[in-house]
């Protein structure tokens, strides 16, 4: 069985300066990156299958600048066999449709039985790339997978709203977008990380005609929905004001 996991890197930052002229958030040189949290769950799901089956190969791919290599090596430390970078320019906006197109070029000839992506990225939160990749490959897709079992058939649980879950039986090949809660991603052991470090990450470049279906025309801090009163003073002064307010609301 061949499994592909598509992953994304996320800058380890909480606060950004906005680059208004280029309509993006500034990521200073030297910023560390980590793996998108949902993608960690996707890798764990793939590794769990590999541990239960014989003859299973896991490839990981990221459409990113070559600096994503360390994240891919971590994925190999978790249990992936091969890693690939589909190289794109840093500091350029690529819409999910463009990224999905690049991934499709990569996956097309490689005949995967299963493709996993995280349900969305933590930075741009589009939740589109996986489904679009499936559409490119004429492959069925299931979004928001929270449980999976392959003992007999591929049975899946998909999360709906309000705690409802659908139990599905699916045929392969199929693309699944993985929701947090499906598993607990492992920490790669030091020895696994050292082994992964020695492995090669292949860099692929496709003729890269930018095909964005949308443009960002402005970026700003999120608008306030309620006008929040900001308490000031020392911690105990704030605590006193807090108690006053909730007391007046009659809940203490």
């Amino acid at each position, binding site marked *: 069985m061949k499994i592909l996991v598509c992953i994304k890197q996320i800058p380890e930052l909480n606060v950004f300066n906005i680059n208004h002229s280029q309509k993006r958030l500034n990521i200073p040189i030297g910023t560390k990156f980590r793996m998108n949290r949902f993608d960690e769950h996707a890798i764990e799901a793939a590794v769990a299958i590999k541990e239960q089956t014989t003859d299973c190969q896991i490839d990981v791919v990221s459409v990113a600048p070559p600096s994503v290599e360390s994240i891919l090596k971590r994925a190999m430390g978790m249990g992936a066999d091969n890693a690939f970078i589909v190289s794109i320019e840093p500091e350029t906006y690529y819409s999910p449709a463009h990224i999905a197109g690049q991934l499709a070029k990569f996956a097309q000839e490689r005949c995967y039985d299963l493709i996993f992506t995280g349900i969305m990225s933590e930075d741009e939160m589009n939740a589109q790339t996986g489904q*679009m990749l499936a559409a490119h490959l004429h492959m069925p897709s299931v979004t*928001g997978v929270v449980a999976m079992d392959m003992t007999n058939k591929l049975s899946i649980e998909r999360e709906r709203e309000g705690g409802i879950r659908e139990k599905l039986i699916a045929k392969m090949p199929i693309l699944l977008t993985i929701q947090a809660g499906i598993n607990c991603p492992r920490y790669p052991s030091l020895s696994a990380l050292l082994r992964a470090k020695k492995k090669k990450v292949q860099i692929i470049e496709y003729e890269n005609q930018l095909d964005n279906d949308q443009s960002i025309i402005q970026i700003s801090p999120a608008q306030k929905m309620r006008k929040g009163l900001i308490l000031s003073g020392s911690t105990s002064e704030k605590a006193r004001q807090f108690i006053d307010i909730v007391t007046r609301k009659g809940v203490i």
Partner: protein
Amino acid sequence: MVCQSKKMMIIAEMMQSRSNANILELFACIESIRKQIPISTQAVLLSQNNTNLPDYLTHYNIDITHIELPDHAHTADPEYIIKILMPRVKTFSPDLILSNHSSFGLSIVPLLGFGYGASCITGVKEISISDGNLIYSRLIWNGKYETQVSAEKKTTAITVLTGFFTDNIHYNKKGKLIHLKPTERLEGSIELKDIKKPDKSDCTLDHADVIVAAGRGIGDIENLDRMKKFSKIFQRSSIGGSRPLIDLGWLPYPLQVGVTGKTVRPKIYIACGISGSSQHIAGMSGAEYIIAINIDPQAAIFNVADLCIVEDMFTFIDAVLKIIRDT
């Protein structure tokens, strides 16, 4: 500037045994566009077998096609749904396709966008017009920042974020109504076996006047006891949590607040160490009064709060408990 009337197409799922709040939100979104430019609207509402279209949905001056899915079909098979929808999209040739930012919308809209060659913009919280073009606002980075996005293709397909288009609209003018029961069969590769519903008996959160909700900022499961102690100073209170805590197994599922958990409307909602993702906010933004405690002054949760307390949550909680103890 004179704009031509734009064609809007709503695609939504009617959920059995649930209110159609998702559909009304899309109607409210349409209304927010109608206030800015002339539009005509058609809604395609999908339901499982034997579900009637509630009469009140027909009074919004929107033409509705109600598609009752046959027994063998279900919305968990997006390929089937696309097969049903695509001819209708092609016939209507909309400028804008709208669906909910939900498990249904997100499984359908990117496929529809791809198949129809439309721009696909997800998680839209506001729509404005600039030079006759629709501009979409969407939240990124867990709701800390927002982008204004314009579409490059002739048609755009969007998903609309829950909790942002909430205006009540009253029309009392009937649109046209078509009822369809498709006969198309598809060798579906996805089979629906069962639907698991959450245990209805646990309504702790529904009955609480005050919800003290914990997020990732709680740090360690050991700290849950301090949170519980804090929640006990309020009458009729309950502890709740954002999704990461439930995923970690630190709190049981019935205490999860957010899109995939409970939608709550307590008198007071106290968010402790919660970043404020749009998924969480959709579940609690209806609270009467929202208090946010977070050490990060830029946390998105402060954007929905009535009272903002920038403090380490436990330093603050300890200070509150100390004052209560001493008085």
